[in-house]
């Protein structure tokens, strides 16, 4: 009885927070879910998609009991085993990622509430009524003002604290529960990202309800180096947008160049299409070392932690603008502006300035003062040749390179006047600088590699924010029926060689009339490629969320619009209520929305959180090979696993024997193999025969293209009945099926996992 009272009290509090009395939809079963509320859904997923753990090390060194050896079934002094330790690691990664986004969201929200007040209405334009699909689904709250977003972010903060607590010594003892917690953290990450981006769109007046956002300049040479240059690095636009305001207010915008590396650059282009994008994270150190930027302004996430050293070396001024990253610099937030400028110009000092207005004024004044005194030229081929002559081909650079590239050969070729190898290496390089650090002859390798950089100007489309409700109405049916073969979302960092891989993947799938969505550093990387007609991906394909479109949703936090689009399909198209109804939404996405994420070059913990959030929502993610270093994948074993679903119409559990989607978190070693996996991971049990035939057509044709002909070894698992077979391969496929003794299968009317595991959600909830 006491327990029931406690539960009712908790629910009462939640109902109050989510304003349950506003009857826009009935409140579902899991408003503001806590750690255990969606645990059964997670366990159902983990039954099929088992964690694949690749420990870095045999030990646990988390507490002073250790180091503890966890090999051969040994347990740590606290009792932990190697699997549980890996689960703990992945939860920590997801928490780091989710807290980075949550903290970003909290910060920008605070700044914008201070500027506009908490009552500032959320209005995402005439084509976006369903403004916050993640927040509505997870919390059950329909945020109407900036102040309402605070409720969402405070919920995220609270859950993150509970989750982090579970990683302390002597807490959680099951890897499966750690995975459930990691999935929870991933889901929270999407809520946090959504808070951040809605706040930014509303508070900074970013584009919304429009597809055709401006094409902005991208690349090394897009910036006019004869002007003073301010370069932003990081993810949070709180200060970069104020710099633009300052330049506009003082009529200086034509005199000063504003550019950036990584997501702040993208954010700034949503605020001003005159801002330029240098490139993704992998170009950061190259650009800083070029010394072209007069002032570097850092905010948060994905910034080099040695930035003060690097800025000093390059002769650039540095301002740290957010308290999360202060580099040990003096906090000059209270110092008079003119005094800071004087110290930066005359004494070449760097400062932390946490007041965006002051930071903006200082940055502009310092840039204008020091630019005329600085030599800002790219290294010439002649200079590079001279500097390369010291190379003895000792091979130290190669062993330090995370990708084992033969950098020495590139450098020694430059010494001989051959620049081809270095050009190739520049495109492959992730820009970590470890080669240069190891060079016994102190050759400035990264500077030399500048001669390999393309001096062309490319284009990236400014991020457009949410997918419009109107677009969802158009594509909802073809996606769920399978006649649009899938949604391919290329997300995250691009620190994977070769940077051109990403553009080639986009090109292949846009050509095949998939819907392609990009975000974050990937959206920049795909712009750094032109076809034979000199067109970038953004000029080649329309910016619509429809077959053959390429949509840039925006920065990292805009990833929430991709998960949001999947939820919108369930809610807008299928008319399933989403309010506090996470399981129904995730179940719908898993079984009926043919979407796949490609996180090809990701390196950060944020990417682990984003991907894990997609996984809980039922979206599979393909990683590049180095992401095996995240230590955990979710893989099925297609022949052995159970592929049972409930046929919601017949209320019967059916063994489909169809591994769709086959994996939830998967690593591919090569782009070519990823090309084959993408169409397969877009297959869903709900596909109509026509849709399935289209999907299999792409799967077979890409298999033939990259696997040397023949038919996929698992093709029979995806053919249910004769009409599923693509016309163009009919004869060949039928002969193969006959040969292996394939038998037709009864299609499932309305596939769902609801009803196949313990849940409060009734099966009828999935019927629309």
């Amino acid at each position, binding site marked *: 009885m006491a327990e029931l009272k406690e539960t009712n009290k908790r629910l009462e509090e939640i109902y109050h927070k989510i304003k349950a009395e506003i009857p826009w939809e009935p409140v579902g079963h899991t408003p503001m879910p806590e750690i255990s509320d969606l645990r059964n859904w997670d366990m159902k997923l983990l039954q099929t998609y088992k964690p694949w753990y690749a420990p870095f090390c045999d030990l646990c060194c988390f507490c002073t009991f250790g*180091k503890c050896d966890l*090999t051969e079934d040994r347990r740590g002094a606290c009792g932990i085993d190697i699997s549980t330790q890996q689960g703990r690691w992945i939860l920590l990664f997801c928490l780091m990622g989710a807290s980075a986004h949550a903290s970003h969201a909290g910060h920008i929200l605070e700044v914008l509430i201070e500027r506009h007040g908490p009552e500032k209405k959320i209005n995402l334009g005439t084509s976006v009524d369903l403004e916050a699909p993640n927040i509505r689904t997870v919390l059950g709250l329909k945020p109407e003002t900036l102040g309402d977003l605070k409720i969402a972010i405070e919920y995220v903060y609270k859950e993150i604290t509970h989750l982090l607590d579970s990683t302390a010594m002597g807490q959680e003892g099951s890897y499966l529960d750690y995975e459930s917690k990691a999935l929870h953290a991933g889901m929270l990450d999407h809520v946090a990202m959504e808070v951040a981006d809605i706040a930014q769109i509303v508070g900074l007046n970013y584009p919304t309800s429009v597809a055709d956002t401006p094409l902005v300049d991208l690349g090394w040479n897009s910036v006019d180096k004869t002007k003073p240059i301010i370069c932003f690095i990081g993810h949070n636009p709180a200060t970069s947008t104020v710099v633009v305001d300052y330049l506009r207010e003082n009529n200086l915008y034509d005199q000063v160049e504003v550019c950036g590396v990584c997501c702040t650059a993208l954010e700034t282009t949503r605020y001003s299409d005159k801002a330029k994008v240098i490139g993704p994270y992998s170009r950061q150190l190259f650009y800083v070392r070029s010394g072209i930027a007069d002032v570097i302004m850092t905010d948060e996430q994905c910034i080099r932690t040695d930035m003060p050293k690097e800025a000093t070396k390059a002769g650039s001024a540095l301002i740290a603008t957010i308290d999360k990253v202060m580099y040990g610099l003096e906090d000059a937030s209270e110092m008079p502006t003119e005094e800071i400028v004087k110290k930066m110009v005359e004494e070449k000092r760097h400062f932390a300035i946490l007041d965006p207005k002051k930071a903006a004024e200082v940055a502009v004044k310092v840039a204008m003062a020091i630019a005329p005194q600085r030599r800002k030229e790219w290294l010439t081929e002649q200079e590079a040749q001279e500097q390369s002559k010291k190379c003895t081909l000792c091979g130290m650079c190669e062993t330090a390179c995370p*990708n084992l590239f033969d950098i020495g050969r590139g450098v020694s070729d430059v010494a001989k006047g051959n620049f081809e190898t270095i050009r190739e290496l520049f495109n492959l390089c992730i820009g970590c600088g470890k080669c240069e650090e190891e060079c016994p002859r102190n050759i400035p390798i990264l500077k030399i590699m500048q001669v390999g950089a393309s001096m062309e100007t490319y284009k990236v489309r400014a991020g457009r924010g949410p997918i419009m409700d109107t677009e969802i109405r158009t594509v909802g049916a073809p996606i769920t029926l399978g006649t649009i073969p899938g949604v391919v979302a290329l997300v995250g960092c691009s620190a994977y060689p070769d940077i051109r891989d990403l553009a080639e993947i986009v090109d292949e799938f846009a050509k095949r009339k998939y819907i392609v969505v990009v975000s974050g550093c990937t959206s920049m990387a795909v712009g750094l490629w032109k076809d034979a007609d000199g067109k970038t991906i953004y000029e080649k394909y329309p910016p619509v969320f429809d077959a053959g479109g390429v949509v840039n949703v925006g920065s990292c936090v805009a990833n929430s619009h991709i998960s949001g689009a999947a939820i919108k399909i369930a809610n807008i198209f299928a008319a399933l209520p989403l309010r506090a109804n996470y399981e129904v939404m995730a179940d719908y996405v898993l079984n009926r929305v043919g979407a796949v994420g490609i996180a090809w070059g990701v390196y950060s913990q944020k990417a682990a959180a984003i991907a894990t959030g997609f996984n809980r929502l039922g979206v599979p993610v393909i990683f590049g*090979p180095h992401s095996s270093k995240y230590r955990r994948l979710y893989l099925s074993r297609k022949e052995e696993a159970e592929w049972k679903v409930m046929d919601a119409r017949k209320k019967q559990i059916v063994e489909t024997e169809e591994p769709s989607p086959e994996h939830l978190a998967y690593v591919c*070693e090569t782009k070519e193999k990823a090309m084959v996996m993408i169409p397969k991971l877009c297959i869903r049990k709900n596909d109509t025969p026509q849709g399935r035939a289209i999907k299999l057509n792409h799967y077979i044709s890409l298999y033939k293209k*990259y696997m040397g002909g023949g038919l996929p070894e698992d093709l029979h698992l995806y053919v249910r009945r004769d009409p599923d077979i693509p016309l163009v391969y009919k004869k060949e496929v039928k002969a193969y099926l006959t040969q292996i003794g394939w038998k037709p299968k009864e299609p499932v009317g309305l596939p769902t996992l609801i009803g196949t595991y313990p849940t409060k959600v009734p099966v009828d909830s999935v019927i629309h």
Partner: protein
Amino acid sequence: MSQLAPLLPMHRVNVLTGTRTARMVEDPTEYAKQILKAQRPLLVLGPQLMRITLGGRLLLEYALDIAKARNIPTCATATVKSKMVELGVTPDSVYDIVEIIHALKDPEWKGVRKEGNHDLVLFFGFRTDLGNQGLSVLKHFAPHLKTMTLCKYYYPHADFSLPNIRKDEQWKAFLEGLIENLKKE
């Protein structure tokens, strides 16, 4: 604990993996002996085999010679199958590296020839980071089998590994020696 053992702290720790590190083998005869001892070996082929040449021959050709010498079943990962088809060889199985490792973890798995799970798995032609992570999975979760690598880098998570070899001629000699020894027995 490898040859480094005398130099390491007493607390069963090494700098590479923690405690268990691959045995470094430079002698092809010893590698051949290990392979011959195995009841059901498996050769897993990675995509680097399609792009690296050694003495004018594609690395994949050396791999196929090894398989042929003792009728070792093959698993083609990534898009290796395409090159094998070109060379007129059909792989015994097609999985990606993470998938074959996932299956190998299960002692009850029937293996690629349905004769039972494998007891020795040879990896050849993978990116070093992915390869090493994959070997770590098997080291920790597949005590029923041993792993061996044929690439020119040291893989600490394997059971048997070559050392880091700087000269390709040395690597070529090793592979040729191995093929020779396998044919001989």
